[in-house]
């Protein structure tokens, strides 16, 4: 199992409602490509934050890749995240004043995974696979198109060979051709690296790229009750 959530209760301390998230038992097997859909603001991002340990549940246990996140110190969590989990968000995935190469290098430097191998070669081959023009590699990313930026974000997410990739509405700021291009590159890379993909979106048109589809309200018992 890549992800295992048991008896999770979560609420933000400054929130009036009782629970944002309430999950009895939810797990994702390794190597799966899971698509979770649901309307915006229903707590999908909260679930992702729990999975990567950025927030801790009020109750219950989160186990990722066999490790219980509850038992880790924040320093251990930082390390665990950079070694095992990749992320792609809706936008602003990159530090805008750094170039593509610098952004990817930065991500690799926080991880233990790349200490021995030739990182520069790995970065170039990733960027080539993701069809980023080589003349754009050294330019600050804020001068590039959103489509290019999202593809660089994929490269950044894959540089540390994550076992789990979390994608939070990464296609919502893309137009249709770039979206299809993005989805096929993402899923191909996940298959090639045997990376478990956890993809969250409100756009059900993307369903066909995945081998597992879940409705968010089926996972979260708290959703819809408020």
């Amino acid at each position, binding site marked *: 199992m890549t992800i295992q959530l048991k008896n999770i209760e979560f609420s933000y301390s400054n929130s009036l409602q009782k629970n944002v998230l309430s999950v009895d038992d939810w797990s994702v097997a390794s190597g799966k490509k899971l698509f979770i859909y649901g309307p915006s603001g229903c707590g999908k*991002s909260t679930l992702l*934050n729990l999975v*990567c340990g950025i927030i801790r549940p009020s109750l219950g246990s989160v186990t990722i890749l066999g490790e219980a996140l509850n038992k880790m110190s*924040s320093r251990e969590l*930082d390390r665990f995240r950079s070694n095992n989990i990749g992320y792609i*968000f809706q936008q602003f995935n990159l530090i*805008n004043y750094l170039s593509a190469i*610098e952004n990817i290098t930065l991500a690799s430097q926080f991880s233990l995974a790349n200490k021995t191998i030739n990182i520069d070669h790995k970065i170039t081959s990733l960027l080539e696979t993701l069809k980023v023009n080589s003349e754009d590699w050294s330019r600050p990313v804020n001068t590039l198109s959103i489509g290019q930026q999202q593809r660089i974000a994929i490269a950044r997410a894959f540089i540390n060979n994550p076992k789990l990739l979390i994608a939070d509405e990464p296609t919502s700021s893309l137009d249709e051709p770039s979206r299809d291009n993005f989805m096929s590159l993402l899923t191909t890379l996940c298959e090639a690296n045997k990376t478990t993909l956890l993809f969250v979106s409100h756009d059900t048109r993307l369903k066909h790229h995945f081998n597992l589809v879940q409705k968010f309200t089926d996972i979260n018992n708290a959703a819809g009750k408020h």
Partner: protein
Amino acid sequence: MLINLAYKSLLHRKGSIILTIITISVSIIVMLGVDHIRQQAKLSFSSSVSGVDLIVGTRTGSLNLLLYSVFRTGTPTNNISWTSYERISQKPTIHHAIPISLGDSHQGYRVMGTTANYFEYFTYSNKQQLAFAQGHKFEHIFDLVLGAKVAKTLGYQLGDSIILSHGIGRTSFKNHDSIPFNVVGILAATGTPVDQTLHTSLQGLEAAHLTKPADIKRLTQTAELTLSQVDDLTPKSITAIMLMLKSKMAVFTLQREINTDKQEPLSAILPGVALSELWQTMAVFDNTLHLITILVIISSLIGLNAMLLASIRERMHEIKLLRMVGASASFVFLLIELEAIIIVLLSATIAFVALSFLLPISQTYVLNQYGILIDSNIISKTNSKLMFYFFIFTAIAVIPSALFAYKGARNSHV
């Protein structure tokens, strides 16, 4: 990685960063400049006299005696007799005794009568002797040697003829019209009150005060009289004596002897002690400069903090990203600290470069206007120490900003 990231992020925000750097540079220039001038003024002040072990005058306070004998301000309460001078100068522990006589002036600058030995034995600063920029010491009765500033501001040259005034006002009503003095020497600038003094022989001063027309006529008609030829002009009294001893060990014994002199009420002071006493009376001035320096530092650091704090609000997203790629919250804390240090480092460099251009330019002006000789070398031990403290204060001062970023980083949600 940390340094590269800090550097790139500063470069990205160069507009506001450059303004901040300019602000801090100006603060550092003020901080170092004010402190440098303060130190140099103190140094210049305490180097007004050196090598003189005791100054003897009439019974008076030590500050008063110091003020009129060394700084040529204020007025002597009384003179001391020539016989006392002779008596003291013959004491076995004395290496040399220089009599000085004050009371006349020229265009507001004091005239000091002394012996030719003054130019050999008087030392200032680090036991430096007086040097002649032009000419030589006085040999004849109406010869005059000018301090550097007197010659410069009044535009006198060798061979010029000068009338002295009685008393010390700039506009004296009584001039020694009948007896003109000749400029035979001009001293090199020292940055001490010597620059503002006109030096002549004791005999010359005595002659200027003669009232009988016959005597004056005799002297002025034979103006080439050398000092040894006018024994009858030996003064009755002088203002003070500067004493150099054979051994410093005798200073206190001699001071007590002079202070308890039975024949005339005298007082002897140690110039070094009196100088530091005098500097202490200027503690307010000293403290004010200190306060200015501290306020400048505080305001610049608050400015730096404000700039960083504002930037962090804009950069919350960047901080979240760093967290997502695995940066710890302490990395974010260090990043902000490092950015602040880089800003101050750049500012310090600019300030040092600016000061090393500014000081040589202002050197002549300050010497002419205030009589303070400032060293153009800004890199000193105290300044390095000041800069070191400045860096430490910076690191401490940006802790609020860095903590704000750290907290933001810890609580960042996707």
